[in-house]
């Protein structure tokens, strides 16, 4: 009995050790396994100027290593495609191409998602300090901007998820406005 208990403790201890060892490296390796695919998203924006949060929803798809599409369906159709170094926006039948490197604020938004999805630690660490908590089943990664241009706009980004799947991305801007992007995989058919 004691032996079994001891074994159990040892096992717990080991799992405990395993917990402590879940680090950014492992998370990134796991994320890098993600082969991409489509997800549904719901985005809530809390803007101090407005009395109610703004809601948007639609679908996102990710093709490793650097193509990310965000199709907003509600309240108004809008498409955002991040492909390599270019961000293409389509709205009201108009199309706008933004050169990412020239817009640090756009970069702050999109590169954080893309680098997280692709498990690109080096790219993330160029612009952010990373803090990871939780375990593989339930992790939370906080990105605090270290690059000045981004830090002027953004306090932090909080990404959370399970294993290789990102579930939620939260942006907190320097002016206190924030937005939450909740992600739900679409089951393979």
């Amino acid at each position, binding site marked *: 009995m004691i032996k079994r208990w001891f074994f159990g403790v040892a096992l717990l201890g080991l799992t405990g050790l395993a917990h402590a060892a879940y680090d950014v490296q492992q998370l990134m390796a796991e994320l890098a396994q993600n082969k991409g695919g489509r997800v549904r998203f719901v*985005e809530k*924006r809390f*803007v101090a*100027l*407005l*009395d*109610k*949060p*703004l809601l*948007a929803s639609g679908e996102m798809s990710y093709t490793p290593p650097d193509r990310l599409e965000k199709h*907003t369906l509600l*309240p*108004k159709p*809008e498409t*955002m495609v991040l492909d390599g*170094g270019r*961000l293409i*926006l389509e*709205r009201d039948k*108009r199309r*706008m*191409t*933004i*050169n990412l*490197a*020239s817009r640090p*604020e*756009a970069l702050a*938004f*999109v590169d954080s998602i893309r680098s997280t999805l692709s498990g690109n630690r080096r790219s993330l660490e160029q612009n952010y300090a990373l803090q990871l908590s939780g375990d593989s089943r339930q992790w939370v990664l906080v990105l605090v901007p270290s690059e000045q241009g981004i830090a002027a*706009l953004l306090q932090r980004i909080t990404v959370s998820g399970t294993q290789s799947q990102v579930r939620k991305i939260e942006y907190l*801007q320097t002016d206190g*406005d924030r937005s939450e992007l909740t992600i739900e995989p679409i089951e393979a058919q």
Partner: protein
Amino acid sequence: MSSALRVFGLWLLAMAAGAAVVWNSHFSADMSFFLPSKPSAEQKVLVGQLKDGTVSRLLMVAIEGGDAAARAKVSRALRSQLAGQPGFVSVQNGEIEGLGAERDFLVRYRYQLSPAVTPERFTVEGLRAAVGNAIDTLASPVGMLFKPYLTRDPTGELLAVLDQLNPGDQPETRAGVWASRDGERAMLLLQTRALGSDTDGQEAAIAQVKDTFARVAGEAGASGLTLSLSGPGQFAVKSRATIKAEVSRLFLLSSLGIIVVLLAVYRSGRLLALSLLPMASGALAGVVVVSLVHGTVFGITVGFGSALIGEAVDYAIYFFVQSGRQGLKSWREVFWPTIRLGVLTSALGFGALLFSGFPGLAQLGLYALSGVVTAALVTRFVLPTLAGEHVRVPVPGRFVNGLFAALGRAHRLRLPVALLALAACVFLFVERDGLWDSNLSALSTVNQVDAANDGRLRSDLGAPDARYMVTVTAPDQESALQAAERAGEQLDRLVADGRIGGYDSPARFLPSVQRQTARLASLPSASELQTRVSQALSDSPLSAGKLGGFIEDVEAARRGGVLQRKDLDGTDLALAVDSLLSQGPDGWNAMLPLRPSSEAQDGELPVEQVRAALAGSGAVFVDMKSEFDTLYQGYLSEAVSLSLAGFVAIVGLLAFSLRSARRLARVLLTLVLTVAIVIAGLHLIGERLHLLHLVGMLLIVAVGSNYALFFDRAAAGEPLDAEILLSMVVAALTTVIGFGALALSSVPVLNAVGVTVGPGALLAILLSAVLVYPARAR
């Protein structure tokens, strides 16, 4: 002797007067050499753009070497140093801080500028829709940029103004400044205050960029960086320097060659000096006449002088060599008529060019015509008096005997020459479609390396090449702006259909007073707006209570009245408007440059559809490239008819003086075959023929006929003695040297004439010896 002094004195006086005219002449080396003297409406746009348009004032700058950070540092330093300088209207390198003044202007005048401002937009319904839309924008990625303006501009007029700009593809950015596509060069785009046609101003601006770069790169300790620069101004400066250097080099070369030949023959410094007299008079007279007739003398025209002196010295050679034995009187009777005929054929050849609408060609013709005629007149009337009766040029016996021996055997080559000529004709016939270069750029002094560099910088920066333009003309500024707005409405439809990518218009930043007044009249009074806003936003997430700034701004716009041109001062937009809206001799002119849609092949526009859309609106659509092609085609077909007319005139002259169909046919056949062989040879070595080669063919006929005529005299039974033969050979040699020097020029106009007429003159005398000189003379 006193008469000699008097003649010399008169000549000296004329030369001094000529020198005074030349001293006060205006010389130019810019594009106007190529631009039409009587432009059509479309060509006027072309000429205006090339000389003074915005595009003609762009300088593109690339910084290479080092790493991205070092390049960016120098780029920023360069911008901050140059931006304040009076020589530059705008200096851009992609730094966002550089756009503050423009943003403030657009915010301030948004109600005058926004096309969305209509009475409907400020009704309760309109406000609800506009504010709802602006809030949606907040949720999009551009929302963050717009958020600070939301409470003052809840209808999103600023966005509506910015939407019109649609800058297309922005250049790449590295370390916060513009970079080339591959990121390896930092890029800047400069606009000079000096007009494109002001070559001195462009030169000063370019020097300032280079000096400033050297200084800031030194201060930044970035020694590995290099600067490369391109643009119309750079081309103008460079081509002027090339032409300047070439004019003196060509003159030196051909003068030296001619002097060596003359000294070898004359063995007398005095005769040499006297021979140079008609030549110098001719060269001077050419410049004087061109300056008096055209007002401006092109550098290229003066460069042509090196060929002219080779031709003008001939008459003195004929005089000295031929008159030596026979004496002056007999020379005047026997030889002068033949020489006069030669002068006349040359004059007809050059004279045909006078009627060209291509100003450069007309100048070359006038220059050469007056030069040749002056040289001949000086030879006939001044030289004999100065030289006196006893001029004796020793005839080198052995040399001339050798020549006679060769000449006597020349007819044996008739069959090979006939075969060669036949081969040349067949070759030309087979290759007839690939002979001509149908592009005006064939005449441009810009070399291929520079053109390629320019194209690379332009595509890196996405700088406009302003190929497509819509232009409207009206008696005053207000009606020009209204016309631009009407044309803009037609263009908007084409943009909506995706037929064109977009367009610029001066009315975008300076709408007509009529339109601005209508917009401001759509704005309700403060109390009315307050009421409507409260109603419109009753259940919106944005509460009406936060919009005090909006009510204030609308009221301020209502009271502020219309925006004037001077309100743009201090922003880059002032330049944008001025470059698109200008006052010319025919009234006010507005330009609307068009951009192709991003899917367009090779940046081409559906020209017919644009024309159809603008039909009846009074706006003129111009495709610069096809205008250029049409212009060149016009020059070319005109040159063909002028050359033919010149040829016919020469034939007529020869027919009149030879009075024998057989003799005429023999002379003409020789000349035509000479031209055929030269052209076939040029094509064989890969030379693409253009307009100036065509002119060269005419000149081969004009110049070559002189030699054919002398041999023809022998064929007609008159004796050909040692003096005549010697004078012919020497004259041909100097002509070949004069035109041959041009072949060394890198200026395509001069080079083409040189490579055609240099070998052509040589071949003309050789073929004349074979085909015209009788088989059984002496």
